[in-house]
């Protein structure tokens, strides 16, 4: 079976199922709707658990709703505005302050709070805690590192990943191939079109340089730190050198159209799909290059949360607890899904039961355990702040603004938004 058909048969399942969710709920006493950004294919282990749960708890029906990651916050907000919210969301931790401010998230009952405190690592519990209150059960942890294509680097005469940014820029320039029109066919380095493609990478590089993106009280940014400005200047230089362009995206990494990118570990499964037997021979993971400071990067977390308007809150929390409790064989239902995705989790039992010793996963786990990976700060209106920052980063990439001007402008806009939480 070729890679292609495997991937498309997975899509079949995904799409068929997303149409199945359209079917009206049958005459069940309690219907629990769960929304995630995972597609049907990725959700397969959880869907099996849903069936089991339905069988064990007659009268309960579980409906799965998928929304693409890019639209996810907008979808749950619109659903909330429209009074058609699902009961359970799998949300990105930085959305939490905004959702809590609008009263969207329900506080978990005491037994769930105890369950989380007993079974989850501190970093992930912190990510799910806003102003001292825990709002859900942590799930997927994602860590950023440098991905590199061993074969493309070797072709250009490099057998090791770059340790400093200057090396990265040099390798990127060497690897890049262009057609007669000067358009890139193989890029040395790749960014991408989403907000995270720019902003998460920028934050990760800031942590790698030893500076947090926001002040500790989340009222100010550190965008004007000289180290932050240098990072953005260097990004702009990659564009100016022609080692990357807007038409190259992190997706190109899977088709050997880009040699390096800073990406998160959840890419694992799609890269295995893309490279098959050549996965280990092609893909390499390295710390984010900086000027030799201590290694550092960013991690972000998702959490299971329950909508405060849900009519089946108790049932929802009970279901969530069940989904995240260890089963025979060690992994919980959520843990099984994350494991199959190649993702990491804040659930200590699951993390211990996962296969994390392989060449790909180990560097990410190491970064979590050593404390090198810092949790993304849950600042006010984070998704809007990030979009603003992305818009200025883009202008530096395009050569329209200097890094200093761009970050000055971003700082003043974001600071104004951060101030809104006090009035």
């Amino acid at each position, binding site marked *: 079976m070729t890679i292609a058909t495997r991937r498309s048969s997975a899509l079949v399942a995904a799409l068929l199922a997303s149409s199945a969710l359209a079917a009206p709920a049958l005459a069940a006493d309690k219907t629990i709707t769960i929304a995630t950004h995972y597609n049907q294919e990725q959700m397969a282990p959880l869907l099996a658990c849903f069936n089991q749960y339905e069988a064990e708890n007659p009268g309960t029906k579980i409906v799965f709703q998928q929304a693409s990651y890019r639209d996810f*916050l*907008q979808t749950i*907000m*619109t659903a*909330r*505005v429209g009074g058609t919210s699902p009961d359970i969301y799998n949300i990105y931790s930085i959305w939490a302050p905004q959702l809590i401010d*609008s*009263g*969207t998230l329900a506080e978990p009952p005491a037994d769930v709070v105890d369950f989380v405190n007993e079974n989850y690592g501190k970093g992930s519990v912190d990510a799910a805690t806003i102003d001292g209150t825990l709002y859900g059960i942590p799930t997927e942890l994602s860590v950023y590192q440098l991905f590199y294509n061993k074969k493309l680097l070797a072709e250009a005469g490099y057998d090791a990943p770059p340790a400093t940014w200057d090396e990265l820029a040099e390798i990127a320039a060497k690897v890049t191939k262009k*057609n*007669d*029109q*000067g*358009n*890139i*066919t193989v890029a040395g380095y790749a960014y991408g*079109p989403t907000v995270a493609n720019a902003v998460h990478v920028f934050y990760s590089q800031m942590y790698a340089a030893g500076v947090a993106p926001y002040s500790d009280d989340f009222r100010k940014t550190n965008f004007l730190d000289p180290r932050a400005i240098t990072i953005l200047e260097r990004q702009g230089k990659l564009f100016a050198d022609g080692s990357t*362009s*807007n*038409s190259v995206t992190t997706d190109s990494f899977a088709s050997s159209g880009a040699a390096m990118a800073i990406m998160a570990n959840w890419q694992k499964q799609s890269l295995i799909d893309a490279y098959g037997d050549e996965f280990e021979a092609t893909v390499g993971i390295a710390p984010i290059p900086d000027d030799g400071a201590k290694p550092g990067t960013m991690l972000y977390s998702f959490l299971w949360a329950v909508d405060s308007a849900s009519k089946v809150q108790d049932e929802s929390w009970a279901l969530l607890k069940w989904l995240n409790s260890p089963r025979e064989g060690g992994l919980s239902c959520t843990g099984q899904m994350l494991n199959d995705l190649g993702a990491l989790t804040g659930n200590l039992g699951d993390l211990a039961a996962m296969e994390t010793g392989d060449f790909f996963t180990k560097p990410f786990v190491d970064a979590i355990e050593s404390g090198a990976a810092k949790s993304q700060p849950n600042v006010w*209106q984070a*998704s*809007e702040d990030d*979009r603003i920052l992305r*818009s200025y980063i*883009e*202008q530096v*990439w*395009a050569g*329209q603004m200097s890094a200093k001007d761009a970050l000055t*402008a971003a700082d003043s*806009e974001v600071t104004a938004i951060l101030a809104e939480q006090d009035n």
Partner: protein
Amino acid sequence: MTDQQDRATRYGQAPAPLPDLIDDAPPLTLRQRISSKSVAPWIFLSPMLAFGVIFFLLPIIFAAYISLTRWNSLTAPRFVGLKNYEYLLTGDPKFWGTVWNTIYFAAGTLAVGIPLALVLAYAFTRAYGQAFWRSIYWLPMITNVVAVAYIWKFLLDDSFGLVNMALGKLGLPGPGWLTNPGIAMISVILVFVWMQLGHNMLLFSAGLANIDESYYEAARLDGASESQLFFRITVPLLKPTILFVLITNFITGLSYFTLMLVLTEGGPVGATNVTALYMYKMAFEDLRMGRASAVAYILFAFILVVTLIQLRVFRRGGVEAH
């Protein structure tokens, strides 16, 4: 209710199509009164009036009110007076950029689209095989915008799109049609012109068909060349149609944003972020309903002024032509 009335009148009296005229006028039944000449028009108008109140007047008032508040639609709105307008017009770093993009887009579609449509319509109107040409040129016009966007996304890909591959074969450079912030808006304009060409051609050819052939014959007898015919006869006689197309296209262009939403999402670097798109995203991504409504009202006011000015010009132009 009207439905039942209709059915009553249609089927209830079906066996006797013509009521007895000889009858002495009896007191009017309810049915007769409703279908009388003075009441009937109001019943015919009732759907329009109900719609006009619920989906026209009410939204306009409601939008005006929320534009004066800060409202995330989840908690109660907070009245802030004209602060939203003040922020947009004086503080917002993006707003004026989107206004410029809007004008650029609207003017660009006119500058490229109108001459092209006019020339093609001129060629089309007196050509053989009208049905054939028409079907082809209308194809993009009836294609949904999502399809248009995905068709062109593939065509305009930097390295592997058909357009740049063709340019490459000719030894020409291949610009980043949708990735270069300096070019993206031009690409969006060209795609939009492609979509709308059939529409404008149609309007022009209807106008051209109304020009009497005898003008051309007379001019040809006087030895006029084809280009003279076009500029001396066609263009002046077509002036009302040209003005009409200019005005409607400009207004459409100022309020249009679907193609940008689907094709470029306003990027790269906000180069195709027009004001209406800015409003849409502000409302449904950031849930700033108040500020977004203020954007809508400012844009509407701008379009209204432009429309009124153009209507004056149009009237004058229309009169001159006759």
